[in-house]
Every structure is written in C-alpha cells, then in structure tokens.
C-alpha cells in the first residue's frame, strides 16, 4: 500500500507544481475553495481547479475499479470536526495542502510552524478521543 501512498503523493506534488508553474498560484485547497465563492472577483480558475479535484477522484474510481471509501463517521465527530476545520483554516490561513505540501517546500517559517501545530493538535485530539471512548 505504501507504494500507492508515495505515487499518490507525487501526483499531489505534480498537481501543485502545475498550478504554480502555469497559473502562478499556490495549491492551498482551503484558500482556493474559499475564493471560489467569496473571492474579490469571480475566480473561474478556482472553480475549475476544484472541479478537477473531483474529476481526478472519478478517474481513479474508474481506473481502479475500487468502490471508494466507506464514510461512517458519526455526526458527533463529523459536525464539530467540519466546523473547526473551517474556522481553523481561515484563522490560520491554510490547511494540509497550502501549509504542508506547498508552504514547507517554500521553506516558509509560518507554514512550518502551522504544520507542526496542526499535526500536534490532531495527534492529541485522536489520543484523547481514544481514551474517552474506552470509558
């Protein structure tokens, strides 16, 4: 499975490279997503990039014959999780792609700190959650 993880990661990197080399934009999905409905002007490229994300998943479904993941997370974690992802990516100016994949590669001090902080808080969250579920 790890070969697919590395190859998939390389594809993610190539997607980010193409967007920067061709369009001059950082592939930070939270920012692109926000701009697609709340940009200073109508940003068609953002909508097309997001449509591409979905198209890429469809191509993978078709090519692999894999039925896709099973989504079974309870609302008790999905709802607060989604809300905090929205709050945090706006307040912290980015997510796993913008800070983790692009920002670290730019050697951005802000992105390196942000990635360490969100990885840390995610590890702690899952750790605490696993303890709570055992009670």
């Amino acid at each position, binding site marked *: 499975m*790890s070969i*697919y*993880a590395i*190859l*998939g*990661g*390389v*594809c*993610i990197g*190539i*997607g*980010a490279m*193409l*967007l920067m080399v*061709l*369009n*001059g*934009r*950082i592939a930070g999905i939270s920012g692109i*997503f926000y701009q697609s409905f709340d940009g200073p002007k109508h940003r*068609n490229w953002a909508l*097309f*990039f*997001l*449509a591409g*994300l*979905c198209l*890429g*998943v469809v*191509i*993978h479904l078709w090519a692999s014959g894999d039925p896709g*993941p099973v*989504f*079974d997370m309870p609302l008790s*974690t999905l709802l*607060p*999780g*989604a*809300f905090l*992802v929205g*709050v*945090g990516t*706006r307040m*912290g*100016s980015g*997510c796993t*792609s913008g*800070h983790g*994949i692009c920002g*670290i590669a730019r050697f951005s001090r802000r992105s390196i*700190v*942000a990635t360490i*902080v*969100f*990885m840390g*808080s995610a*590890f702690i969250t*899952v*750790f605490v*959650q696993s303890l709570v579920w055992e009670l």
Partner: protein
Amino acid sequence: MKIYSALASGTVFGFGLALSGMTDPANIIGFLDIRGQWNPSLAFVMMGGLAVTTVTFQLVIPNMQKPVLAELFVLPETNILDGKLVLGACLFGIGWGLSGLCPGPAVAGLAYFDWHIVLFVLVMVVGMYSGDWLTRLLFSAD
C-alpha cells in the same frame, strides 16, 4: 487557457489524493492514532508530495520570470509568526483529528456522492465564515 490549466492541475492533484488513500478518513485516523495499528501512509504521501514541490519552489520557480499562463507568481508576503496562525492551526488540527477530513479530500470527495461529505463541506463553509468573524473578534487589534 488558465481555466484549463487549473482544471488539469486539480485533476492530477485529486487523482493523487484518491490513489494515496487520503480521501479515506480511516487512513488519516489510522495515522493519527498512535495507540492503534499505526498506518504510516500519510507520511509517505507527504514525502512524495514534498519531493516534487520542494524542487518546484527551490529550483524551478526561482529560474522563471513569470508563470507560463499568468503575469505573476502569487505568494504570501507575510513572514510573521502570530497568535492567529498558531490558534488557527491548532483548531484546524482538532477538527482534522475529529473527522479525519481536511479541505482537499473533502472537496475532492464530493465526487463519491456520499451525504457525509456533502454535510462536511457545508458545515465547513459555515465554519469558514465563523472563523473570519472570530478572527476579527479576537485579533482586531493586530
């Protein structure tokens, strides 16, 4: 042209998310849950992605005058570490740990037509506007 290059970039990116298993929240939680059967795939994905983007940002972009299809490279100019960045990243990490989803896999995952993902994206939008409001409330003096 710019919309087609954006579509192509997004398609490669989205294919990579699915191929690497990052659109499956179970793989994210499996990586974050150090008490369970540890699933290292997220680390391999980061290494594969960073190998390409580091070469891009350190060797390719510095040798280009401008992007192929645009007038300039749009890069963040601020380099200041502030409370906004740290608190925001911390809250994002909690949300990511709770749900196993971050914005990329969530938006790409809309292609699976599953109500969990649709609901996630809708609530994330509410969270984004709340985040703007909360940021103004907490950090307006900055």
